[in-house]
C-alpha cells in the first residue's frame, strides 16, 4: 500500500540529506519526496510517499522520528487529505493535433502553458492517479519530456491526524 507521510523538520543545512540518507540506508522504498517551507519560519514540511506494509511504514516513521531535526511525523494516508502533484508534460504537437489535445486537457482542468512549432507543454495538478491518467491519454501524441514534482499533501480541516 502507498502511504503519504508528512514530516515536519527543522530547516537546517543537511536536513534533506539526513532524511533521504536514513531512508536509503535502511532499505526503505521511497516513491517521492517533496520539501518546502511551512507556515512557521525555520520549519519545513516534507511529504514522503512510500510503498510498504504497515510494519515497514511504522518502522520508517519511527526511524525518521529518531532524527533530532525531525519535529513531527504523521501518516496522512488514513485520514481525509488533500494530495497534489504538479506535472509538466511536453508533447509533440502540430497545428492539426492542437485542438484535439486541447480537448483532452480541458476535462482534467490542466492548462497549456507553452506552444511551439512542433510541441506543446501542459501543466496539470492533482492526485498522482489523475496525473497518470492524463499522461496515458497524451502518450499517443508522442511525449518528449515529463517533469513531476512528487506529491505534497495536507490533512483536511477538522480532522486530527494520527501522530506517531
Amino acid at each position: 500500500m502507498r502511504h503519504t507521510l508528512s514530516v515536519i523538520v527543522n530547516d537546517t543545512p543537511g536536513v534533506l540529506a539526513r532524511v533521504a540518507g536514513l531512508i536509503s540506508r535502511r532499505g526503505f522504498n521511497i516513491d517521492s519526496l517533496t520539501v518546502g517551507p511551512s507556515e512557521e519560519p525555520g520549519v519545513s514540511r516534507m511529504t514522503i510517499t512510500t510503498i510498504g506494509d504497515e510494519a515497514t511504514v511504522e518502522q520508517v516513521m519511527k526511524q525518521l522520528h529518531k532524527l533530532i531535526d525531525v519535529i513531527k511525523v504523521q501518516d496522512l494516508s488514513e485520514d481525509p487529505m488533500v494530495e497534489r502533484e504538479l506535472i509538466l508534460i511536453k508533447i509533440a504537437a502540430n497545428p492539426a493535433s492542437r485542438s484535439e489535445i486541447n480537448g483532452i486537457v480541458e476535462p482534467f482542468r490542466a492548462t497549456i502553458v507553452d506552444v511551439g512549432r512542433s510541441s506543446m507543454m501542459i501543466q496539470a495538478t492533482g492526485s498522482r492517479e489523475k496525473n497518470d491518467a492524463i499522461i496515458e491519454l497524451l502518450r499517443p501524441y508522442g511525449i518528449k519530456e515529463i517533469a513531476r514534482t512528487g506529491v505534497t499533501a495536507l490533512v483536511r480541516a477538522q480532522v486530527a491526524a494520527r501522530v506517531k
Partner: protein
Amino acid sequence: MSQAIKPAPTSNAPQAKPVQMTGAEMVVESLKRLGVATIFGYPGGAILPIYDALYESGIEHILTRHEQAAIHAAEGFARATGKVGTVMATSGPGATNLITGITDAYMDSTPVVIITGQVATSLIGSDAFQEADVMGITMPITKHNFQVRKTEDIPRILAEAYHIAGTGRPGPVLVDVPKDVANGKANFVFPETVNIRGYNPTTMPSMLQIERVAEAIAEAERPLMYIGGGIISSEASEELRRFARESGIPVASTLMGLGAYPQNDPLYVGMLGMHGTYAANMAIFHCDLLIACGVRFDDRVTGKLERFSPNSKKVHIDVDPAEIGKNVAIEYPIVADAKNALKALLEKAPRANCADWQRQIAAWKAEYPLSFKQQGESLKPQYVIDLINKLTDSRAIVTTEVGQHQMWAAHFYQFNEPRKWITSGGLGTMGYGFPAAIGAQLAKPDELVICIAGDASIQMNIQELQTIAERNIPVKVFIINNGFLGMVRQWQELFHENRLSESKIGAPDFARVAEAFNVKGIRAENTAQAEQAIKDALAHPGPVVVDFIVEEAENVFPMVPPGKGTDELIVKGWEE
C-alpha cells in the same frame, strides 16, 4: 540512561556580564561547565586553536597514538562510568580515523561526544588540505551531528551535544568546529537549560501497558527475562535484581548485558545467542512469555528469526521506540527507560507461578554447563581465563578485543556487577579492548582493569603500549595467543571445509614487544607459568603484558550456526 548532563556552575567566568572569548576558549570553558575532566585525543592543524586553549586549562588530556584508540578509550571511559566520554581529533585523517569507534559507539549505544576540527568555512567544499566531509560521513553513525557555523553558537551546541549523547538511548554525537569559527571572537553565553524541539525521549512507561504485562506474568507458566545493555545504561541493575527475586522469573542475558544480573544467582540462566549457554538458548526457545528489556533482538541472539522463541508472547521494554517491533512482532510494547519500567512493574508486585519451569532450567544448566578439561601442561584458553577469574576474585573490570577470547571471557569470567564488562558487541571491533581498558582505568583509577585480548586483535592497536607506558596506566593486558584469527578459523573449520584461508596470523613475542615500550612483559607457556604470571602481573603496580601461549586448536562452543534456530545449537566440544 536516565541522567541528563546538567551544566554545572563550576567555572569562575561570571555569568552576569558576558565575556569575550575565542571559539576555542568557548569549547574549553563549555567542557568545564559540562563537567568534562578527561579528554582523549590527538592534535592536528585544524584543531590547533582548541588544543591551544586546552593548554593549562586543567582538563586532563590523554594523548593516544592513534585517533581510533582515543575514541575507544572514550568509549571505555563512558562504559565504566555511565558518563559521556569525550574525544578530540583534527580534520580530515584525524576525523576519519575515528570512524570505526564512532560506529562502535553507535552500535553499542555508548554516550560519546566527538569534537573534530574542520578547515575554515571559506575552504569547506574546496577539497582543501586535510578536508573531509565529516558531517556527511558520520550522519549514518551518530545519534546526531553538528557543524558549528558561528562562534557564539559553541556553548549552546556543546550543551546540546552532551544532552543528546547522554539521554534517551545514549549514543555518539559529533561536533565539527571549523578553524575560523574556533579562532573567531564572541560573547560567551552558556545556556541555563537545554531544550531541543523534536527531541523528547519517552522515559516513563504507560501504566496501562505495565498492568497488562503484570497480568501476562500472572498467567505465564514459562516466563523468561531477556536483558541487555539497556539495563546497564539505565542503571537498572538493582531494579532487575528485585524484579527477578520478587517475580521468580529467570534471567538470561545478552553479551552486552553481562553483569547486570549476578551470574552466581540461581535464577540466572546464562548468556543467550550464538555462543550462549545451552540452558539460555533452550529457555528462550521454550518460554511462553518473553520479557525483553533493554535489548534489540540482534541476529546474534535470535538466530533464524522464524525459529526465534516461537511459543512466547513478547514484552519489549526499550527507550527507543524504533527498536520495538523492528525485528520481531511484540504483543506488549513499552516505550520507557528500563529502570522506570521495572520500577513500575515492581509496584504491581507480579509473581509468576513457574516452579516447574525453574526446575526445567536448572536441569538444562546441569545437563550442559559451560566447562572444559585442562589436561597436561599445555594451556587451554578457557583454563587461563578461569584462572584469571579466580585470582582476581571476579572483581576486575574486564575489557576484551573481539574473537574467540572474547567469547571465552564472556563464558569463564564471572560478572556479578554492572559496568565490569566492556566489550564491542554490535560492531565486533578488533582493536577495541586495549584502548577501552585505558579509558576504563582512567575513569576508575582505584580498580583493577584487565584487557583480555587475542594475539591478532592486540596487534590492531598495539601502539597504545606507549600511551600506558608513558603515563604508567596500570592496565593488565592478558593475551590469549593461539597464533590464529581464532574465530575466523573456527568458521572456516565448520562452514568452509577447513580451508584455512589467511587465518593463520603470525605474532611477535609480545613480552619482548612490551619490554621495548618499557612495559613489563611476561610469557607463560604452561599451567605453572600461567598461574605465576597472573600473580606477578597483579602484584606489579604498573602496566603489564602477559603472553599466554595456548593450544591452537580449541574452539568456542556451544554455537548456534548462522541461519539456524537457537534450539539447533551445537553442544559438542566441551564434554569430551
